[in-house]
């Protein structure tokens, strides 16, 4: 179904691109925060989006999620893990800040 992009590429381009992207995302997040580039809430949103992009880079460029032979059970496992992660973290924040002034 999904042919691997390069069976035997001469150079590991996808790794180099992934590495460059991860460094760029990290530095943007770091200097946006230390330089106080934005107000608190938009800045928080920006660094969370950058973290999500970083994670996608790791998964796609380095762990090659979704590029394996079928059946891709590990994609389902990954989905389950993300579901639990969001439920644990978001519901904890929600319930612990319920009816209290948000910081």
């Amino acid at each position, binding site marked *: 179904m999904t042919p691997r992009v390069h069976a035997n590429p001469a150079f590991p381009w996808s790794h180099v691109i992934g*590495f460059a992207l991860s460094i760029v995302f990290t530095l943007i997040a770091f200097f946006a925060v230390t330089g106080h580039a934005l107000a608190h809430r938009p800045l928080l949103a920006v660094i969370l989006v950058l973290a999500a992009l970083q*994670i996608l880079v790791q998964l796609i460029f380095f762990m090659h999620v979704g590029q394996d032979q079928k059946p891709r059970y590990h994609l389902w496992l990954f989905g*389950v893990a993300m579901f639990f992660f969001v439920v644990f973290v978001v519901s904890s924040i929600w319930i612990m800040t319920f009816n209290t002034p948000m910081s």
Partner: protein
Amino acid sequence: MAVMMEEVLPKQAGPSRTGDNGPVRLELSTADGATKIFGFWMFLVSDVLLFASLFATYVVIYTHTADGPTAAHLFGHDTAGFLAETLALLTSSFTCGLATWEMHQGRAGRLKMWMGITILLGLVFLGLEITEFRDFVGQGATMQASAFLSGFYTLVGTHGAHVTMGVLWMSLILYQLARFGLNAVTARKFFIVGLYWHFLDIVWVLIFTVVYLTGVM
């Protein structure tokens, strides 16, 4: 599943064979290898649950500093420190990826070289983290000083313990590769420790963002 039916096939290194869905990689070339890699993904799910609990705890209690050092104070005075830790770990994830790539080309020598570099970068990361913790404790920011610091050391320390484990584990696999050569078994073992290593990098990206960057905002 045709791939998984073939019990024990290639035992020596070499370019990938061709299967139903494109080239079959060495670590997936036996049913045993494919099953164990799948099993390791299941372990990673359970490790996500561990870190999710620790992140949830940290986020809920990190403002509870009990008149002790705050996140802004603690992380703000040496932002270069946690940036260096992040760059060391990101680079090690890259070199680990290169090791996997060389393995798929059947080049055991370069695989071992990149593994060695990955282990060294892991040690650099651990050295930076231990220095940071010592520095914090020297400022009175001990684990029992406040809820914030208990959460901080538990979350970041659990990740550090994982990295320590990863360094030891990868060193043992490096020894096995040197001793037994690259075959379906050692390829599977390296591939699994590689998945673990990339996973730790993902957890660190979240720690970098949620703990350090949010702390100094």
